[in-house]
């Protein structure tokens, strides 16, 4: 394996409480290779989003990334970035699609503006330049560029999700973190979107950190998968292996709870 793009080492994150702290992520280590899709699966509340947030350093108090934690992107220490470097790092290196991407567009700003402010911050683009780039990106996700002057509420959920993906791609990031990007959508739309991401990944070569609790979907999409259980990474392996030969009891239990389309339960 070549040098990993993302390397997470001993990541430990606490939510500081009034008296007691809550350890949401406990000593998690994993790598994501360039161009790879790495999946994080696990039940609700096991700490998946907390990891995703840590990678872009998006946490706010009372989240606390413990000092032993290391996050390296392309060999750079993400946790050591100062404010300016962080600002430049975000989105240009790591872009993110959120759990409820439906709501991750500002309802009172035009789509165009939400592209523009990011493009201006990172690339110093003018309005016209930004508009060109926006059109380009929207086409990429099958949205008519002339709709860039619309507001988010004028799009359907799936379209909004694709717009967010377009915004993600605009700076050619090295890593895209996707935190349950399709949970709120129905299967057909979900499929369309993931398929599109897959194609984009092929052509742009970015890595994806993919988070969901739908194991079936994950196996379809990911190269490697990590299974989380209450803050800890209990198993990580190739998708194939996780599907065919799960090792950890918890992984097995997860598989057991999926009814199969073909009748009965998987496994």
């Amino acid at each position, binding site marked *: 394996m070549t040098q990993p793009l993302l390397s997470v080492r001993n990541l430990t994150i606490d939510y500081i409480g009034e008296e007691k702290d809550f350890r949401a992520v406990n000593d998690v280590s994993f790598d994501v290779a360039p161009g790879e899709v790495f999946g994080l699966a696990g039940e609700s509340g096991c700490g998946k989003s907390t990891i995703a947030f840590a990678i872009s350093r998006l946490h706010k108090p009372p989240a606390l990334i413990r000092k032993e934690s290391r996050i390296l992107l392309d060999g750079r220490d993400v946790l050591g970035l100062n404010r300016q470097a962080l600002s430049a790092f975000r989105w240009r290196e790591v872009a993110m699609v959120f759990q409820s991407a439906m709501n991750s567009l500002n309802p009172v700003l035009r789509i165009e503006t939400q592209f523009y402010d990011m493009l201006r911050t990172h690339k110093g683009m003018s309005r016209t330049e930004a508009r060109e780039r926006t059109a380009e990106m929207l086409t990429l996700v099958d949205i008519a560029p002339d709709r860039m002057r619309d507001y988010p509420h004028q799009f359907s959920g799936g379209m909004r999700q694709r717009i967010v993906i377009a915004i993600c791609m605009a700076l050619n990031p090295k890593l895209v973190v996707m935190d349950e990007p399709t949970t709120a959508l129905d299967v057909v739309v979900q499929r*369309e979107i993931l*398929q599109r991401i*897959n194609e984009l990944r092929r052509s742009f070569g970015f890595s994806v950190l993919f988070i969901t609790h739908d194991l079936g979907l994950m196996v379809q999409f990911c190269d490697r998968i990590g299974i989380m259980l209450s803050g800890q990474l209990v198993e990580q392996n190739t998708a194939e292996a996780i599907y065919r030969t799960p090792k950890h009891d918890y992984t097995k239990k997860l598989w057991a709870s999926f009814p199969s*389309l073909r009748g009965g339960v*998987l496994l």
Partner: protein
Amino acid sequence: MTDAILALDTVTKTFGHGFGAVHAARAISFSLHAGRALALVGESGSGKTTCARMAMREYLPTSGRILYKGRPVEAAKSAEIARYRRSVQMIFQDPFASLNPAHTIAHHLRRPLKLHRPEIKGAEIDAAIRELLRRVRLDPDLVAPKYPHELSGGQRQRINIARALAVKPEVIVADEPTSMLDVSVRLGVLNLLNEMKQEMNLGLLYITHDIATARYVAEDIAVMYAGQIVEWGSVAKVIDNPLHPYTRLLLSAVPDPEVRFDDPKARLRPDEVEDIRRRSAVPRDDIVEFEQDHFMRMI
């Protein structure tokens, strides 16, 4: 097959009127039978919940009839409506919102007993509550005095089931009862529903967008799109041999660990998808019976 307990007969529901009207349900017909489950599947906004609500008499249909044991309920007198209410119970999607955070579990179960089972009195009520909780595999001593927020999602959904069972219903309408639950507890709830259906000879209307679970609990299935049922019949026949392009599309999009995305076979073509959507949304009333217990709306 036995006589239907509850049947929707070419029921239509339109919200609003004129230009902005939404046709949430168009000429919907289906029936529920004792001991059998009908799964209603379809994408978001296809009109599943609307059908459920009409079955619950929460909405009155714009046109068409709802038959209870063969008799239309629209014109029913209040006593009959009360009886109908009792025999048709609902389990909600969101286990967090369907229990009043201000009341204990015992209270949630006591109300339906008091309202609809006047024959149970005094101390018997407590016994009945314990019995109900045991039925849904919960420890009565532990759970009864608790408040909803002290329970997990799966437990809460069980309480919902217990509450629905409290009045001894004939039909249960379950609107995506597991979509808000963690994967690991989903199956438990579905299993419970299955058991209840068999033990108590209930008719079950199971609404979901997850075709896989539909197959797991239901004998019959109806696929909805844009307010119409596009294909219906026995679960195995429809899933194993889908006819309607929309059903096919739906099935092909279901995550399948056997098929990776990179596999060109699995690929959905966006233009095709659009085309299917467009064509399936057109209201049609010609229906073909493809084989026994397997129908399809023409496209």
